[in-house]
């Protein structure tokens, strides 16, 4: 029985660590502010899995309690983050984390994307989302738009 408990623990901890790691990698690598926020939540998921596993192993409520409060805090952060993201988008017109690099040491050159990939033909079929039921206009120009930084 005890072996089983320990094995269960190891399995869960491994899953938790992987999820946490994927969140970290996403936070570092992805540049979309929304996706970055999701990745941060993913880190918290990893922690939650770990905590719940420990809680089971120690037969202690503490871990589960911390998970409850992690969910609460995540909700708070989400509220702040989403309001923030909306306002940042209103200001910058894009959700690129790399846009926000005005504050840096003097004499350090800004980071500029060396190559912005062209939209490839087979990848063109993005769904256009209608926020409030208005039929989307298909803008051919925008579909093959090449962005600049």
């Amino acid at each position, binding site marked *: 029985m005890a072996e089983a408990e320990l094995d269960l623990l190891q399995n869960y901890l491994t899953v938790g660590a992987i999820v946490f790691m994927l969140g*970290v990698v996403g*936070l*570092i*690598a992805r*540049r979309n502010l929304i996706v970055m926020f999701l990745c941060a939540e993913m880190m918290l998921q990893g922690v939650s899995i770990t905590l719940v596993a420990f809680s089971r192993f120690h037969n202690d409520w503490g871990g589960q309690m911390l998970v409850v409060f992690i969910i609460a805090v995540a909700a708070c952060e989400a509220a702040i983050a989403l309001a923030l993201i909306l306002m940042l988008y209103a200001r910058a017109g894009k959700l690129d*984390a*790399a846009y*926000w*690099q*005005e*504050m*840096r*040491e003097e*004499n*350090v050159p*800004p*980071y500029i994307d060396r190559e912005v990939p062209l939209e490839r033909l087979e990848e063109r079929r993005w769904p256009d989302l209608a926020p409030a039921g208005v039929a989307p206009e298909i803008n051919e120009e925008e579909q093959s738009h090449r962005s600049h930084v």
Partner: protein
Amino acid sequence: MSDWTTIQKLLVAIPALPLVATMVTALLGPRYLRGKSHLPIVFGLVISCVLSLELLRQLNRAIENHETGIGYETTVDLWTWASVPEAYDGSGSRKTIGDSTGRLITDVHDASDSSGPFHIAVTLRADGLTCIMLAMVTLVALLIAIYAVGYMHQDRGCWRFFTYIGLFVFSMTMLVSASNFVLLYVFWEAVGLCSYLLIGFWYEKREAAAAGTKAFLVNRVGDFGFALALFFIWTVYGTLNFHDTQNAPGVLGQERLSSMQQEFGRPGESGEGHPRGAQDQDVRTGYVGGGIGLAICLLLMLGACGKSAQFPLHVWLPDAMEGPTPVSALIHAATMVTAGVYMVARCTPLFAVDCAPYLDPRAVVATIGGLSALIAGIIAMTQNDLKRVLAYSTISQLGYMFLALGTGSLVGIIAGMFHLFTHAFFKSLLFLGAGSVMHAMGGVIDMRKFGGLRRLMPMTFWTFLAGALALSGIWPLAGFFSKDAILAAAYDVGHGEAAYASLFLWLTYAAFLTAFLTALYTFRAFYMTFFGAEEIPAEAGHHARESRPIMTVPLVILALGALAVGWIFGQPGATKSGFAGVAASTPSLAVMVHPGYRALDTAAERKSAAERKSAAEKKSAAEKGSVAEKGLHQDSHRRVAIISLVLAVLGIGIAGFLYLGDAREVRAIIQWPVMKQLHRISYGKFFFDPVYWILVVLPGLALASICYAFDRWLIDGLVNTIGRIPSGIGRLFRNMQCGMLQTYALWMLLGVLTLLGSAVWHMW
């Protein structure tokens, strides 16, 4: 705080009030008080003055209750200023300070809890010297502040002036009540700072700014000596407290010390006053003599010379007259310049050491004093600036005081302090009178430009006359008693059998000569100002009239003081609570009448003791009583008194002969070959300034330019190279700070990885 005695409360309140007043003025002055900036200061000083008189009364009572011991003092510990705690002495044991009631303060602030190798407490002490100085300082400051209300009323920087004055009074009261050398040094510097600020008060005037700088620089020389002396004292005695220095551990012998502690507790341990030195302990064995002792004394004396404007560091004081006249009266005549005298008197036990193979420190003190007195007296003869005459006169009188301290006998020291006390009255009176004249003359202070003012300014005239007579030493005014006591003390030593008897004999003659000169130059100034044809400079304009009552009332009060203080306090038969009694109750002085105490010159002391119905063998209390009861005027000194009185009258007469009328006699006299040279020297102020210029300033400049070149080309290069290293490192790391959010996250994560790797490595 509630368990403080009345004396302790008073002692804290006296400096606190000027401090509070200063803060109020500084904060509210520029915006709200403006022309009324004097109110807080004057108000604070009134209370402070009343309190310090009350303190004197309380002290008297306390002295009477402590008949048995030698001396009386009370300390009050405010807080520990600096203490290197013992907690980290390596043993790991830590003393838990404080108890469950949360009364941390009393434990921590216990000055006797020398919980570390270096422990400095902010502690005040009250004893005879301190109380006399406090009373004098607050009283004179109060009168001068009132005077300044009238004097400064038109000045835009009124609030600044009163702020500085308040700060000065605070610093000065703290200086005289400080209980250890560090505090003394701090406030020593603080009064110097106030002096600097006030000399340069009218900083738009080039001379004023220059004079301020000069005062500061010359004082630095003295302070340097003082600081060195402190280091020496720390090294030798292991303490910087006055009371500890008097029975320093390791000097007295450990058994004596511990037995003393058992009997009396450590000094300063309780707030109570306690008798000291009741055992017949050879007090002198507690002090270190020889070369070190001499060095300490000389360095202290250097500090005193700077602050008290003694030869050869006296050059700053005459220039300091560029400041407002109340400042000259308060700081540069009555109080701050006497700090040096006070300090030397306070350190009497240190000066009394036997430096056998070397010079005797007291002879040095006396010589400097006598020389200063004479030289300043000669210079004062020819000055035309009324305030400068008074400034040189101040130097001269301070010289008297040092001469008195240099005699080393109790009588002499008390005489010096008494002269300090009376001098404060009549010299500030004279300065204020000069200020009044200056005020009326529209800022002109050159005596050649005005004259015959006695009808125009009757009030000033009469009060100035009182001051001048007192300064000249005419019986029964204040100056007579104190100066006479000094002359008598010097005379005694000179006619004794001391090693330096002949030196003192000469110094006595010089002092007599100075007494004559004093009368001469004082009345020269007096006649030139108030007699002769009425002459008013153009600058005066419609100002030329008697000053307002707010200025003359302090003059009158001071004049009454100048008339009476000598008579009241210096008379034979004055009570034991008189000046001599109070001063002699100071522990550091009281040890001198202790049977075990061996004076500089046993023979002279014995002789004077014989004249006091002598008793080296008699009980100390009785002896002290004899000093106190008889006052400073011993019967046998009538001879000295008569000589000095005659000299003074002679001086006044000669001055009248020379300077009443058109002064053609003077011009005739100056033509005499000897007098011509003398006049040249005197008029050139003994050429101190040019000599200093050549000897000190020019080499300094040359050295500075050499150093500059060296520094510019060699050191700078080196330093710059080293100095560039940090910013060079900074540039290396600069690129990490590229502004990209995700770069930062990556760096953070790399940091975590590094730490994690080291942790895993550590655990493997």
